[in-house]
């Protein structure tokens, strides 16, 4: 028999048991610390909510501003959460009163300084707070953060610039559309969309100058979100672009910007596009444009081989008033069962929706 002569196992057992005991102790200790912090945060939250509601009613008092200026890092996060909760419920004037109080405190100054904090978490939080609280003097700092090494900070900076409707930073945000990350693209598009009609001329100029399909696609999405285009002819021209993803977005945008006959013609032409997503979006846009000239083509599209084209064509017909409904009724006698079924569904759904 091999001589198993060692005593370190007992030492190992004792060490592990000691580690387990230490873990239990740490667990309980952490729990108490967290409980105390939570209790404090809840108390603070209640107090801050009361203060901010008072500000909303009568404006801030100097001593309250001074008190607020003394809040530490985690407490500022509590304040931010309270702001997020109560500000959307308030009237515009009341919101302004609260915002002016925050502007006069040093809270926002500290967050502006935090845009350069060594911790990415602090920088990201600062972007979020400054954007949501509408601190326009943070715009230069936020533009700087578009080059941040951390992706979360970059994304938050884009979102914050959108919150602040920083039209001046528009070109820098558009540059982010060339990024490979689709999420950054999405955030950039949403930020640009929130900038409102003031950004339309610049969006159109960038669209005209764009040579990148990703950027063109993103700018068309912004156009669709804004529902405005300075030069609809440019959007119509892009519905014939080489890249099918760009064509889809151009056709989608045509359905959202103010309707004209030329847009209907382009959408009707797009119903013959080789890519089914373009045909489906063209059908949807024809429904939005509301031109009855589209009815015969939409009726024909209900027999398309792609399910989503049939679906959107049926939905578009259902929105085109009595003439559209009549077309759907006619399709109930179509020899193609797919067309009959879709027509039946659309008539049923629109009748039910109308009844409710």
């Amino acid at each position: 028999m091999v001589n198993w002569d060692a005593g370190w196992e007992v030492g190992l057992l004792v060490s592990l048991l000691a580690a387990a005991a230490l873990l239990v102790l740490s667990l309980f200790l952490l729990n108490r610390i967290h409980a105390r912090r939570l209790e404090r945060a809840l108390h603070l939250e209640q107090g801050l909510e009361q203060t901010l509601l008072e500000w909303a009613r009568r404006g801030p008092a100097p001593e309250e501003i001074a008190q607020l200026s003394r809040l530490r890092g985690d407490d500022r996060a509590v304040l931010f959460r309270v702001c997020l909760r109560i500000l959307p419920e308030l009237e515009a004037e009341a919101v302004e009163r609260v915002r002016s109080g925050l502007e006069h405190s040093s809270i926002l100054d500290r967050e502006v300084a935090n845009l350069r904090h060594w911790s990415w978490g602090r920088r990201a939080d600062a972007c979020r707070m400054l954007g949501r609280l509408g601190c326009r003097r943070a715009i230069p700092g936020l533009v700087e953060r578009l080059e941040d090494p951390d992706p979360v900070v970059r994304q938050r900076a884009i979102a914050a610039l959108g919150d602040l409707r920083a039209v001046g930073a528009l070109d820098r945000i558009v540059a982010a559309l060339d990024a490979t990350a689709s999420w950054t693209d999405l955030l950039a598009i949403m930020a640009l969309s929130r900038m409102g009609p003031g950004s339309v001329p610049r969006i159109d100029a960038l669209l005209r100058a764009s040579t990148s399909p990703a950027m063109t696609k993103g700018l068309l999405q912004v156009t669709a979100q804004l529902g405005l285009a300075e030069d609809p002819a440019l959007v119509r021209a892009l519905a014939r672009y080489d890249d099918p993803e760009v064509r889809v977005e151009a056709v989608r945008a045509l359905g959202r910007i103010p309707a004209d006959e030329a847009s209907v013609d382009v959408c009707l032409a797009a119903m013959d596009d080789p890519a089914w997503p373009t045909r489906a979006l063209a059908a949807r846009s024809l429904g939005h444009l509301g031109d009855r000239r589209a009815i015969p083509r939409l009726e024909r599209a209900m027999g398309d081989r792609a399910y989503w084209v049939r679906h959107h064509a049926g939905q578009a017909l259902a929105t085109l008033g009595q003439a559209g409904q009549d077309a759907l009724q006619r399709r109930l006698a179509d020899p193609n069962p797919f067309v009959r079924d879709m027509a039946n569904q659309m008539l049923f759904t629109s009748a039910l929706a109308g009844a409710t």
Partner: protein
Amino acid sequence: MSSLTALLGDEFLLFSLVITGYFALFNTIQLVLLLVAFRKVRQRVRAIRLEDFREIQESDLAPPVSVVVPAHNEGPTIVETIRSLLALRYVRLEIVVVNDGSTDDTLALLIGEFGLRRTPRVYWQQLKCKPVRGIYWSPACPRLWVLDKENGRKADAINAGINLASAPYVTVIDGDTIIEDDAVLAMMHAILPHSRDTVAAGGTVRIANGCRLEGTRAVQVGVPSSFLARAQIVEYLRGFLFGRVGWSELQSLMIVSGAFGIFRKDVLVEIGGFRRDTVGEDIDVIVRMHRQRREAGRPCRVSFVPDPVCWTECPETLGQLRSQRERWHRGLGETLEHNRAMLGNPRYGRIGLVAMPYYMLFEYLAPLVETAGFVILPFGWALGLVDWRLFLLFLIASVIYGLVLSLLGLVLEELSFRRYRDLAQLAKLVMAAVLEGVGLRQLQVWWRLVALITWRGRAASWVNIPRKGFQRA
């Protein structure tokens, strides 16, 4: 006895060392996963500290999501589940409930509660499933669809739901599950930065036993009185908080829980949906996604996101728990068998070289080794064949090391999500962690061993856990 000792001595020592080494290696892998998960979980908690998900919530550019809820005899919980889904914070959300030939009042309850109307809905049947008896729509809740079909088991019901789903992302949740109101938002928030590569993602499943729920929130997270349920809380924390997060970080995640997962519909359709001839459809679908994507040379990312939470009831009796664990083990065995070509195959990257061998050695075959350890070593020690110090080493590797890991799981929970806030609750969970290692763990090993040996010869059975219904606030 001394002659037996002399005869078996060296072989027995070698055997004991192998078994002990196996346990030590298993727990060390868990420790590595924990360390990987620790960093990731803390990072995620930091990133969402001031996140209100407004960018996704308010944008019609965020991709639509269809929630598919397979329901078979879920009468006691289905209405609450659907209500919680209707309260979800996600603008572009559609809910597809699949009544899988329930023999109870599931369908009647849904019709009555939500004013459903039978509709002639047309959809693209891309996946095979049992015949559909009718489709219902709620004019009062236009986002709600109910598909009534013949019974074909869970995977068949999910496939039917996927057919009807119109969104590019499909969330599959169990009919007895409550998901928190921002869970889909949080999940999409984690998916969208990697949307080109991500084919599936899972969230954390937490145990609802002992909790009081209000709408989609657990207003009072409690620890159940049943020891079995408490032990499962510890087990789930270990499994989700560091097991899945760790594997996800190593890009080798092989399972997304059937109770709450989100999938890209096009990829599900490409692989033929959920497999209907296995009881482990949740693990199988992920493995086949990895397989299909890698064979096609396309990226495949399966993520685990720890903060989106769903609540589900767990078994509280030994019989129910046994049935569940046997089914899980059978499901794992079926998946490994169906995809054995991936095992150790470098073509499948980390999944073939790391995750599959791990699941084979440390999950599927584990009951053989563990039973040998838990039975033979104590006997060997009692008979004097094993030195007490070696036996002690075995206990350290198998029980104490596991306990330390469970406690680390509780610490990670306390440092990150802190759902169990009372000291008394934590004390109960610590006790459950201690007791789970002596008795319940060995019992589970035995159940899994029985499943390992017998599953091939037996027809798959699905024993539903009798639902008590959620405790409402």
